[in-house]
């Protein structure tokens, strides 16, 4: 009986240490934070445009499977953006000159959002998530860490509407290339949305038609 208990205890300890090793995230030192932030800000400034594919996975604890959608995104500095889902349905949203244009499977709608504070925040959030430059200490409590492959910046909204719906935003940056490769939006319930960028083309040629839906 004692032997079984020992074996089980050993197994448990093994599982615990391996999971700790795999999930190992090391906090950045103050110097590392400054270096990392400067690196990201410099890289974000150098991004005049960006084209990328993405896969979005919605995790809800009560579902058997994650909900997967995918598409592509085109961004042009400072704030032109076309976020387009192509699978399993067609839906695109364009942010252009203070207006939002939606094409939901052929149903088109537009609305003026200039001067709308919530819109400005969302726009800033999306552009920030794409470029990586979201280091606004007034808006978020930010923590920095790294694992073997990525820097991880975690943003906890401090107040307002964002705080009501999002518990935390995680941005992942590959250590070799300081451009966001993954965004994770954590809800208070433990459910989350994960967006992974693929085939990123920095400063790719864009045209006005890329921002028309």
């Amino acid at each position, binding site marked *: 009986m004692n032997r079984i208990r020992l074996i089980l205890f050993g197994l448990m300890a093994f599982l615990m240490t391996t999971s700790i090793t795999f999930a190992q995230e090391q906090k950045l030192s103050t110097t590392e934070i400054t270096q990392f932030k400067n690196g990201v800000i410099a890289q974000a400034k150098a991004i005049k445009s960006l084209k990328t594919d993405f896969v979005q996975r*919605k995790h809800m604890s009560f579902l058997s499977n994650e909900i997967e959608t995918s598409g592509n995104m085109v961004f042009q500095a400072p704030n032109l953006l076309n976020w387009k889902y192509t699978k399993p349905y067609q839906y695109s949203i364009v942010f252009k000159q203070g207006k939002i244009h939606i094409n939901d499977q052929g149903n088109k709608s537009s609305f003026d959002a200039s001067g709308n504070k919530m819109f400005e925040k969302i726009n800033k959030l999306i552009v920030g998530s794409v470029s990586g430059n979201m280091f606004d200490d007034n808006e978020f409590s930010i923590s920095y860490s790294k694992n073997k492959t990525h820097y991880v910046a975690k943003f906890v909204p401090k107040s307002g509407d964002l705080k009501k*719906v999002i518990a935390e935003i995680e941005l992942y940056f590959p250590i070799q290339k300081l451009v966001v490769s993954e965004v994770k939006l954590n809800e208070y319930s433990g459910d989350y*949305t994960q967006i992974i960028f693929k085939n990123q083309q920095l400063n790719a040629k864009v045209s006005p038609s890329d921002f028309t839906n």
Partner: protein
Amino acid sequence: MPKLALRILLISLSLIFFGCGTYQPKNAELITTAISEFSNPYFADISQDYVYKANIEVYGRNLGGIVVIKKIDEDTHRVVFATDFGNKLLDFEVSASSFKLNFSVEGMDNKRFLKLLENDFRLLLNRNYLIEKTFANSNENIYESKQKRGMLYLFESKEKKHLYQMIFTKKSKEKITFEFRNEQETSPTQIDIVHHSLPFRMQLMKI
């Protein structure tokens, strides 16, 4: 005599009232009044996630997003509305006798709106409908099921043996129509919910 006249008048009036109060499915004959049960063929598999792209028109406003339906126990379903970006807007659990709101963003927590969704999804996700009357014509069987606030008519195609429509009526008037397009047995590929006395319609397309 005036008393008798009044009584006759009341009886006639009540006959007219009740006569008008019965909804009769068009072009169908009553074939039985024996009580039986109709098992909902949809949303019954506890291992399945039913995920739909939603389009909602409410008071002239258009809302798009994702609706997820999941059976979580014998009597209860969990329903989540989310944006296309995945942000949860509304999360509730509904059964024949209960409704529990797990989460709602501001603006979606309107009492009348929630009541409407509770009623619609209760009708849609009911496990068994108690049938009091059965009507039929050459193409379909129509089952009448008494609900809390009215009557529900379930239209089953004789040829394909599937539930393709439900009509909820109140005092003989059609109030809500549910239409199902169905290429699969366990869940419809498209659901259209149309309210006839409210500016509300919802289209769900399976993804």
